[in-house]
C-alpha cells in the first residue's frame, strides 16, 4: 500500500428502506474516519401527543407511527394497557392476536425480501427492474405479501392502520367462512413459502462472520411474538418491566433517532436475533426445509437475516393455519375493561425486532405519559458497527462504488424502519 487515498461516500437518500435516511462515510488512508447512519426524518412527537388521550384511542394513534408494522404497535400498546387495568384476555384473543401478528410478519418480510433486499443480491437497482428479470419470483413474493395483508385484514379490515384491535381483544370476531377460505389460501401457498426459503438460501450472500449480541423475547413453549421475557445469547434473562434497567437510549448528533445499548454495547434485534435464540421452537416442517439448505442457525453471518425472514414467513403461515384450523366464534371477541391508574409495559416482536412500550394512566384510563422504544433505533448502533466490519472485511481499498453498495446493502439487510425510529425527535447537525 503506497498511495494515500481518501474516499468520501455520501448517500443522501437511502433507497429501498422505509423512511428517509442517509449515510456519511469518510475513509482516509484505509481507515474509517467517519461512519454515520444518518437518520434525518423529522420527529413526530408521538409520545407527547398521546398524553391526555383516552386509553381506547391508543391503538389507533400508535399504529400511525409506522405503516409497515402497525400491528406491532397496537399489540405492544394493548398488552401494556391490559397490564395496567389487570385484564387477562381470553385464550381465543391471545391466539387470534398471534394470527394477526403473523399476518404482519408475512407481509413485512415478503415486502422486504422481494422489493427491498433481493435486488442487492441479484444486482438490480430497484424492484421494478428486478421484476423484469425475475417475474416469477417477484410474483410469488407479492402473492405471499398479499396473503399477509389478507390475514391482517381478517381482523383489522385493512392492513395499514387496521381498525379491529382494542384493549381487551378485538372489536369483532372474523366470520367463519372467511377464516376457512384464508386457511385454504394459506395451505395452498405453503409450497411457495417453502420454495422461498430455498431460493433466498441459494442467493449469493457474502460469507462473513461477526460478533454481536442477539436479543429477543423468549417463551418456553412457542416461538416468541408477544409478551414474555427478554433474553440474549450473552446470558440476559429479564422481565420486560425491567427493560430500562439494562437498556439505555442515548442521543447521537447525526441522527434524529436515539441509539440504544445493552450494558453499554450495541446489540441486534429482529429476525436473525430471534432465529438465533429460538430456532429450536420452530415447527418441524419449517426446520426440515431449513435443514435442506446449507444454512444453519444460530448464525453469525448478518446476511442470513434474509433467510431468517423467509423462515419466519413459513413459520408464520404454519402458525396461522394451526391457530385458525379449528376456529370457532368466541362468546365475546373482547373483555370489558375497567380503567384504573397505574403503569404498564408491553413488549412484542415487531417484524424488525423488539418493540417496547410503557404507559402511565390516571384512574379514568387517560394517558399521563408514554415511552416507546422501536426496533430500528435499537439496531442503529449495531448497523454502524456492522458497516465498519463489513467494509473492513471486503477491504477498504476497494473501489468507491463497491464500498458504497456494500454499505447500502448492509443497511438494507436490517430492514431499517425510519418512520418508527424517528417517532419523537429532531436534531440539527452541527458541522464545525
Amino acid at each position, binding site marked *: 500500500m503506497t498511495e494515500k487515498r481518501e474516499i468520501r461516500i455520501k448517500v443522501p437518500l*437511502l*433507497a*429501498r*428502506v*422505509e*423512511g*428517509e435516511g442517509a449515510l456519511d462515510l469518510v475513509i482516509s488512508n484505509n481507515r474509517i474516519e467517519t461512519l454515520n447512519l444518518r437518520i434525518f426524518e*423529522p*420527529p413526530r*412527537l*408521538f*409520545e*407527547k*401527543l398521546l398524553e*391526555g388521550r383516552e386509553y381506547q*384511542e391508543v391503538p*389507533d394513534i400508535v399504529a*400511525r*407511527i*409506522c*405503516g*409497515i408494522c*402497525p400491528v406491532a404497535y397496537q399489540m405492544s400498546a394493548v398488552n401494556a394497557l391490559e397490564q395496567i387495568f389487570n385484564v387477562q384476555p381470553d385464550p381465543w384473543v391471545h391466539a387470534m392476536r398471534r394470527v394477526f401478528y403473523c399476518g404482519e410478519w408475512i*407481509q413485512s418480510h415478503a*415486502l422486504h425480501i422481494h*422489493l*427491498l433486499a433481493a435486488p442487492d443480491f441479484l444486482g438490480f*437497482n*430497484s*424492484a*421494478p*427492474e428486478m421484476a423484469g428479470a425475475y*417475474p416469477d419470483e*417477484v410474483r410469488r413474493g*407479492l402473492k405471499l*405479501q*398479499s396473503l399477509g*395483508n389478507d390475514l391482517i385484514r381478517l381482523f*383489522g*379490515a*385493512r*392492513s*395499514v*392502520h387496521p*381498525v379491529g384491535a*382494542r384493549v381487551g381483544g*378485538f*372489536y*369483532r370476531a372474523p366470520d367463519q367462512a372467511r377464516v376457512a377460505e384464508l386457511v385454504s389460501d394459506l395451505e395452498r401457498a405453503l409450497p411457495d413459502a417453502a420454495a422461498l426459503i430455498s431460493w433466498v438460501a441459494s442467493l449469493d450472500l457474502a460469507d462473513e462472520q461477526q460478533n454481536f449480541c442477539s436479543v429477543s423475547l423468549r417463551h418456553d413453549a412457542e416461538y416468541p411474538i408477544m409478551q414474555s421475557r427478554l433474553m440474549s445469547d450473552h446470558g440476559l434473562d429479564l422481565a420486560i418491566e425491567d427493560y430500562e434497567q439494562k437498556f439505555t437510549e*442515548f*442521543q447521537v448528533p447525526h441522527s434524529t433517532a*436515539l441509539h440504544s445499548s445493552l450494558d453499554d454495547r450495541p446489540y441486534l434485534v429482529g429476525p436473525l436475533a430471534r432465529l438465533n435464540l429460538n430456532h429450536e421452537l420452530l415447527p418441524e416442517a419449517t426446520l426440515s426445509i431449513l435443514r435442506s439448505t446449507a444454512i444453519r442457525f444460530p448464525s453469525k453471518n448478518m446476511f442470513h437475516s434474509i433467510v431468517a425472514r423467509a423462515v419466519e414467513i413459513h413459520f408464520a403461515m404454519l402458525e396461522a393455519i394451526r391457530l385458525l384450523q379449528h376456529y370457532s366464534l368466541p362468546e365475546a371477541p373482547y373483555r370489558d375493561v375497567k380503567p384504573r391508574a397505574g403503569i404498564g409495559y408491553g413488549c412484542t416482536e415487531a417484524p424488525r425486532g423488539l418493540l417496547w412500550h410503557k404507559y402511565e394512566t390516571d384512574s379514568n384510563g387517560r394517558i399521563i405519559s408514554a415511552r416507546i422504544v422501536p426496533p430500528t433505533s435499537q439496531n442503529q448502533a449495531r448497523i454502524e458497527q456492522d458497516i465498519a466490519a463489513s467494509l473492513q472485511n471486503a477491504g477498504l481499498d476497494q473501489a468507491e462504488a463497491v464500498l458504497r453498495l456494500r454499505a447500502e446493502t448492509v443497511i438494507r439487510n436490517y430492514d431499517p424502519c425510519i*418512520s418508527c425510529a424517528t417517532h*419523537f*425527535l*429532531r*436534531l*440539527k*447537525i*452541527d458541522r464545525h
Partner: protein
Amino acid sequence: MSATKAKVAVHKFSSCDGCQLAFLNMGEDLLALFDQVDIIHFAEAGPLNREASVDISFVEGSLSTPEDIHRIKKIREKSRYVTTIGACATAGGLQALRNVAQQDDWIQSVYATPQYISSLDQVMPIHEQIAVDFELRGCPVNTRQITAVLRSLLNGVTPVNEQDKVCMECKRQHEVCAMVARGLPCMGPVTRAGCGALCPGVGRDCYGCYGSAENANTASLGGRFHLLRLNQNQVRHRFVSFNGADPVFASAGSMGTGKND
C-alpha cells in the same frame, strides 16, 4: 393513449409511510403498474431521481422543516400534476396536533439536547406551500383510491373527488348503525367516504381518519356526542386527531376549548 409511458414519482415527507403502501400492497397488480407507468422516483421501491421532471407526482407526508418547503417547491416545478395522498399531506396528519400544543414544552421533555432542534413552528399540509392539483384523503389512502386516480389521469381526465359521508358507504354495506343501535359516538356523518366504512364494518364507530366530508355539520354531531355523555375533552379528541389541520374538524374541536373537564 400515447405511446410513451407516463412518468410517475412518489415522494415522502413527514409520515408513517402507510400511504405509499397503497402502491406496494397492490399485490400482483404492482406488476401491472410497473407496466403502465415509468416509476422515476420512489425511494422505497428503489428508483431514485428526486430532481427529474415527471408527469405525475404523488406526495405523502406533511411539511415540518425548512428543507421540506424547499423540496416541495422543487417537486412542484418538476411535476405536471401533483396529487397529495393521505391525511399527513392533505391535512397535516396526527403530527399536526403539535400545532395546537405548546411545542417548545414538548420538545424539552423528550430529548436531552434541545438546542439541536430546528423545525417549523407549524406542521403544514402540502397545499399550504404549493398549488396541488388533486388531494386524496385518508389515513391511510387505499389501493382502490390510488387505482382510481391513476386510471383517470392515465385516461387524461380529472380524478373524481369523493366527498360524500362515510354513512353512505356504511349503509350500502348494510352495517347496522353503531350510533343509533349502540349509542357509540360515530364520526361517520361528518367524515369523508373512501375507506369503505371499515370501522362500522368491524362493529365500531368511525374515528374520522378520512377527514371532513363536504357540508359536514360538526356542530350538530358534536351536540349529539354530548348527549351520548362524552365530555368536552372527548368530543374535542373525536374531531382533532388524525387530520390535525383539517379546518372543519379543527374548528369543531376548538369549540368550547378552555373547559377542560
